[in-house]
Every structure is written in structure tokens, then in C-alpha cells.
């Protein structure tokens, strides 16, 4: 077993400010194997790849190639070590020929013999069965062929480990099959391939093994035949978070009022397809589905975060128009965005300013909240949500992820919303804070606030939501209530009918 292992990563640690991106992750790649690296966004797979290719430096752990320790400080190191990467976007030059693209930046000599180079390129292309000629302009080839040329370049650079990062996302079925043929061909030549993709079917079509990461931790390594699609989904979104399952049992979450607070018919936006949705006062519901299923896009449409195209919206039974965030805020809706860094925090501003921001906007430009009021609000919520910060004047950017999230929560709570949309409020934050946020959601619901809760962790949603809306391919494919609210049913609905691998 040990002889055939090509690449070994052991106890890999990587810390980013406030987040442990990789915690003690192991990964093994064997000769002549196609190995899928799976995980939801933020699971740590891109961090792992970037460590392997020298973009990031690891904080701990070791990497062995063919049994020998290697240090990878830069992409050049990785290349010398026989590790090549082909990215989703083509990183070659479309206005050069195929041959030039294959050799550019590699010829140590100044003197280049074109003829020789082209002959060699043609040989490689033929041997790999790539339908391209050396003298062709790369830009004239199809995307799939361009990708293959990139692979050919990597192969010719004596690569032992080939990383394919989402190579199929811009290819059609035929092209994908061409690519798969090439991958199988390389595999038979003894190259180890790490395959990163979001398409589950492709994993089962071409891979031998699957390694699943979640929250920066290794979930496990499995042979494809041992891990049916539904189980893979389960591993990716995490049902093994047992330490949390005890929580929430005591809290009665089904206290649902019958009054509808918000109702939308045929709501669609630039990013979300038309859908119907309603929520009652004091109800906690959830949108679930894999990444890219349209769950975030749908709730953004409710808040008017993207350009709203159509839809009839009623708040408290009154027909209203919500086309931009301020409209939604004026109707008592708050939205905690999925990407905290990009859409949530104002990094350079203090905790105080971040907390009062939404309320200030709601009050209008000409009614500034006085400094003393601001301080009182900030202190109140720092205490109430147990936000760990040096002072209320500390820039929010220097807080840990969990505390940043609490500040954003405080920001919305301060506006006393009737309806709060929380998109991934618990991503990338520690377990303790996750618990606090879940408890807070249930407490809000008890006070009559409607909450929409989105999380990649199904367990979390099962604990907090009384109704789950399941999405796949940007459509609502199911709504689960009562007895149906269990892990198996959710997995089944997410994976859909075509989960024939069981």
C-alpha cells in the first residue's frame, strides 16, 4: 500500500485571522488514481490545493511526494516537485500557437528551434489523443481542447500529480467526455489526478476515491463504490455533528402563529427564478439545497438585494413594493448576508458604527443618532450578545469571525425587525457561537419575529426550523414539515430522483 502512494499530506494546518481553515487534514493520492476532493464552499478544499501548489504556506504538517519530504514555498517549487494545476479559467495565451503555449516559459535556452518544438508538440498531442495541431492558434480551439492543451503542457512537464480545479464547469457533455477519456488515459500512465468539482455525477463517472472535507476538517476518505451519492451529500453538509444534537431538544420550536407576515407570488430577480413563498409571524423556516441551488438568491430577492424583476409581495396583508434593500428595511425586514466579509462588515469602522449602521440608515440622513446614544446601543448589544471585543471603538475587521457575525446580528436586532433573514449566519465560526446564534433565533421566534434561516449544515436547520424549503437547480423541489423534517428525507429531496447509486 505504502509503495503506491504518490502524494501524502499529513496533519495539514492552516490558520487565517479568526478562522482555522484547515485543521489536521490528511490527504493521500496514489499512483494512477483519480481522486475527488469534495466539500461545500468554505470546507477547505481550495485552501488545501493552494497549499499544495505553493500559493499559501501551511502552518503545520508535512507533505511527501513519492515518500520524500518536500517544502513548497511557491508555485515554481510545486512545478519542480512535479505538481501541476489546470484551473477552471484557461491561463494560457489564446493568440499563440498550441506549440508555443505548450513550451512557453519552459525553454531555458534563448535559441528556440520552432520546427523541433512543433514536432515534439505534435508527438505529445497524438500520444494523448488530443485533437489539436501544434501550429494551430490556441484561440481557435474549443474550450475543452484548450483545457486539454493545458493538461498536455502539464503532463510534458513531467508532472506526477495533476490537479484539475473545476475543469468541467464551462464544458458541454461531449467535451466533458473527451476530457474524461484523457484523464483515464493519464491515469493508465501512472499520473495521480486530484479532481475538484461540484458535479456529483462526474465524480461517480470518473473517480476512484473521494476525500470529503467539511469546515476545514477531514470527514473521511472513501472508495467511490462504498459511498452512494446520498451519503456523499450527507458527508458534505454534515450530519455527524453529534455534539450539537442534544441542544434544541428542550426548546419548543413549533409555536407558530397563524398570521402570515410576508407573502410573495412569482417573485423573481436578476439572479433568482420565479418562486412563491410565505412566512408566518414567529415562524422559523429554512431554505436548503446544495451550493448554487439558488437558496441564497431566493432570499436575496425577498430583501431586494438583487434587481427584482417581477412578483407580487404582501407584508402584513398589504401589497408593497420591495425593489431595493431600504424598501425591505422600511417594512421591517432585515437580511444578514451570506458573505460576511463582502456584504456584511464595514471592516475599518468600529464595532459601534457597525452596530448602529442599519438603524441610522433607517432613520435617514438628517436624523443622526447622537454619539451617546450610539455608545449606549453598542454597549447594550455587546453585552446582550456577549461580543468579545477590546472596546466598542475597535475596528470590526480585527474581531474573530464569530464576533463579527454577532455584531452584524446586533446591527439588525437594533432595527427591531419583524422578519429577519439569516443567510449562513454560522459559517466559519466556532461551535460555541453557533449554539448561541441558534438559541437566539429560537428566542426571536418566541417573541414573534419571523426568521428565515439558511445553513449548509442540515442538522442546524432541523433544530431551528419548523419548515424547510428544498431547492435544486434554482427551483424549489420540495417543502418539508413535521414528520418529514429528518435527515434522511432532506438528503433524499436534495439529491433528487437521479440518486440511483444507492
Amino acid at each position: 500500500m505504502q509503495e503506491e502512494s504518490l502524494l501524502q499530506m499529513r496533519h495539514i494546518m492552516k490558520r487565517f485571522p479568526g478562522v482555522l481553515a484547515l485543521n489536521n487534514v490528511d490527504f493521500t493520492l496514489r499512483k494512477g488514481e483519480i481522486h475527488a476532493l469534495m466539500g461545500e464552499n468554505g470546507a477547505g478544499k481550495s485552501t488545501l490545493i493552494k497549499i499544495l501548489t505553493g500559493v499559501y504556506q501551511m502552518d503545520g504538517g508535512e507533505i511527501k511526494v513519492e515518500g520524500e519530504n518536500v517544502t513548497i514555498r511557491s508555485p515554481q517549487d510545486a512545478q519542480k516537485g512535479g505538481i501541476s494545476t489546470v484551473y477552471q479559467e484557461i491561463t494560457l495565451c489564446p493568440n499563440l500557437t498550441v506549440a508555443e503555449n505548450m513550451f512557453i516559459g519552459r525553454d531555458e535556452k534563448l535559441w528556440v528551434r520552432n520546427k523541433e518544438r512543433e514536432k515534439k508538440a505534435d508527438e505529445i498531442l497524438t500520444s494523448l489523443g488530443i485533437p489539436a495541431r501544434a501550429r494551430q492558434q490556441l484561440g481557435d480551439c474549443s474550450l475543452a481542447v484548450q483545457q486539454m492543451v493545458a493538461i498536455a503542457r502539464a503532463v510534458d512537464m513531467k508532472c506526477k500529480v495533476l490537479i484539475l480545479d473545476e475543469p468541467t464547469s464551462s464544458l458541454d457533455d461531449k467535451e466533458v467526455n473527451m476530457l474524461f477519456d484523457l484523464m483515464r488515459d493519464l491515469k493508465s500512465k501512472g499520473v495521480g489526478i486530484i479532481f475538484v468539482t461540484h458535479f456529483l455525477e462526474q465524480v461517480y463517472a470518473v473517480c476512484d476515491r473521494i476525500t470529503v472535507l467539511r469546515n476545514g476538517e477531514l470527514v473521511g476518505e472513501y472508495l467511490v463504490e462504498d459511498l452512494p451519492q446520498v451519503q456523499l451529500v450527507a458527508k458534505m453538509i454534515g450530519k455527524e455533528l453529534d455534539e450539537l444534537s442534544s441542544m434544541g431538544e428542550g426548546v419548543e420550536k413549533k409555536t407558530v402563529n397563524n398570521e402570515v407576515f410576508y407573502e410573495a407570488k412569482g417573485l423573481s430577480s436578476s439572479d433568482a427564478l420565479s418562486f412563491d413563498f410565505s412566512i408566518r409571524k414567529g415562524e422559523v423556516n429554512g431554505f436548503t439545497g446544495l451550493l448554487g441551488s439558488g437558496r441564497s438568491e431566493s432570499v436575496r430577492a425577498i430583501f431586494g438585494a438583487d434587481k427584482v424583476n417581477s412578483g407580487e409581495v404582501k407584508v402584513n396583508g398589504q401589497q408593497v413594493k420591495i425593489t431595493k434593500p431600504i424598501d425591505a428595511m422600511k417594512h421591517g425586514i432585515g437580511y444578514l448576508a451570506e458573505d460576511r466579509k463582502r456584504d456584511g462588515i464595514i471592516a475599518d469602522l468600529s464595532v459601534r458604527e457597525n452596530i448602529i449602521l442599519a438603524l441610522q440608515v433607517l432613520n435617514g440622513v438628517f436624523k443622526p443618532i447622537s454619539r451617546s446614544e450610539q455608545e449606549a446601543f453598542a454597549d447594550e448589544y455587546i453585552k446582550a450578545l456577549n461580543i468579545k471585543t477590546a472596546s466598542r471603538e475597535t475596528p470590526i475587521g480585527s474581531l474573530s469571525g464569530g464576533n463579527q457575525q454577532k455584531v452584524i446580528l446586533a446591527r439588525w436586532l437594533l432595527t427591531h425587525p419583524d422578519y429577519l433573514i439569516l443567510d449562513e449566519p454560522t459559517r466559519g465560526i466556532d461551535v460555541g457561537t453557533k449554539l448561541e446564534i441558534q438559541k437566539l433565533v429560537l428566542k426571536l421566534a418566541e417573541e414573534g419575529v419571523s426568521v428565515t434561516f439558511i445553513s449548509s449544515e442540515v442538522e442546524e436547520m432541523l433544530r431551528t426550523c419548523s419548515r424547510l424549503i428544498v431547492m435544486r437547480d434554482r427551483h424549489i423541489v420540495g417543502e418539508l414539515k413535521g414528520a418529514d423534517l429528518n435527515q434522511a428525507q432532506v438528503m433524499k429531496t436534495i439529491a433528487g430522483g437521479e440518486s440511483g447509486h444507492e
Partner: protein
Amino acid sequence: MSKKAAKKGFTAGLGQLTIPLVAIAILVIFNLIRDPSFFSIEIKHNIDGNSVLAGNLITVINGASELAILAMGMTLVTAACGGQDISVGAAAAIAGSVFVKVLKSGASINAGTVILAFLLACIVAMIFGAFNGTLVAVFNIQPMIATLILYTCGRSIAYWINGGATPTVDSGIVKAIGGFIPGVPIPTPVIIVVVMAIIFKLLFHFTSLELLTQSVGINGSAARLNGINPTFIKLLSFIILGVCVSVAGCIGVGRLGLINHETLLLDVEMDTILAVAIGGNNLGGGKFKILGSIIGAYVIQTLTITLYAMNVSSTDVKAYKAIVIILLVVIGSPVVKKKFEKFMAGRASKKAASEAKGA
């Protein structure tokens, strides 16, 4: 508790102002060593028989007025848009031309016509500001590129308005704007700077513009999701700069009683941007301190006057200015700041360690 916090806030604010304050202190000390009487202020009687203050200090403070006023508006644009308006000089020439044009079209010049002329100049400058702002806020063009258009053609526009090379206005009131109000020994431009600074202070006190502008500048996407309209905030910053531009333009006209569309506030845009940078404001937008930019303006002016006083030929002045400014900007850069902080932290921990050993 609150007192302690307030003090903390004050020192935090000082952090940004440290460099411009130190720079101005160094310049002052340098000048005092060079010529102890450099900053002596005397009372002179000007041609109209008024007692007025005179001396290098007054020259510096007075001469920096337009720059300081422009720097205030530029700070706001920088904060909101993460870029700078390079057309302020050209726009000031337009505003000044409108000011003169209106004054000259009337039969006589009195306080009423001057106010009217100023208001019209303001409106025109605000319209041009809105034009720049639209390109930046609506079409997402880099501010420097967007304002390049007005930078290129602004002085030609001023030329058409003038209809001639250098129209002059002979009026006591206009002269008073750029010089001295009879009976007041302080130069009027200095008074205008103080008034403008107070207006900004009040603006930030009675509105939440400061917070909104900073939010837009730091994270436009998050600001939008908090109900702020970034387009409007950016546009507004350019319009406010327009007001500053027209004030500066009118002072420029008042100083000499003439408008020269080619030379009025020539190259002032670069000095303005530098004033903002020296003031410790991030040229990439976000948090800002208008006071910093004002001090920055005085740093630049002190430097210029110092060099003049040292008889440095004015062709060389620019080179010397460039050297000093590079120093200031590099010292204020995040890289150096971080290194410095690290160094200080290292020293502090070493000190702590040695103390611990000693104990």
C-alpha cells in the same frame, strides 16, 4: 469610563493626524533655526489704509486657503469613491469665469450682484460635479479617468465663458473676498476657510453623512445591503466638492481681480490630492478626517513658502517639494506603519521581558 473612552478616541484620531502634525512641526522648527524672525507677524497698513496682518505665517495660511477648501471636498470624494477628482483646477477656472461673467454683465457691482454671481458659479460647479459624479457613481468609471474629461476641456470651457483671455473686475467687494475686509486685519480667504470648516463640521454633526460616506467607501456592497444608496452618496460627494471648487475659484478671482482661465489654480488638483494623502487619509477610500487634509494643505504651503524664502528657484521648487512629499507619503504608507508598529511592539515586549528578568 466614558471619559477614558473619549480620551482613547482622541488618541486614536491623533494616530491619523500624527504625520501631518509632525511634518508641519519639523517645517516650523527648521524655519525658526534658519531664520528666527521667519514667523514674526507685523501689522502693516495696506494701500487702502487698513491695518492688516503680514508676515510669512500669514502668507502661508492665506495662500493655502484655496488648497484647504478644495482638500475638504476632495477628502469626501476620496472617501466615498476611492479615487480623486483631477478636474478641480479646471472646474475652479469655470466657476471663476462664471463669477466674473455675471459680475461684468450687470451695470454695477454691489453686494447683491456678488452674492448672485457666487451662487450661479456654485450652481455651475455643482452641475459639473454632478457630471463627474454620474460618470463615477452610475457608470462605475475610475474617478481619475472620469474626471480626466473635464480636466482636459475645463479650461477651454472657461475660455468660452470669458470670451477673452483675461477679463478683469474692479470692485472693492471682489477685492475684499481675495484680500481684506476693511477694518478686519485677517485675510478674508482665511476667514472663508474657517467658515467652510465649520460648515463641514456642522454637516457631519447634523447629518449621518460621515458614517454613510465611510461605509460606502469601505464596503459599497455591504453598504447597499444596509439600505444605503452608494450611487447617491458618491454623486453627493462630487456635488459637495463642486461647492468647494466654486468657493476656491471665487477666492482665486478675488485675489487679483481677474480671471485667467489658463493659470487660475493651475496644477492645484495634484496639490489637493497630496493634501488629502498627507492628511493621513486612505486614497483608496473609506475612513477619513477632513482636519487631516486641511493640515496637509498647510504643510504643502509651508513647504512652498519655505523654499521660496530660501531663494530656491521656482523651477526647482517642484523637485524639492516632490522629495519631501515622497518622504511623507512613504512614511505614512501602511507598509512602513506596520513595520513601525511591529518594531515598537518588539521593543515593548523586549522591555517587558527584561523588566520581568530584573524582577
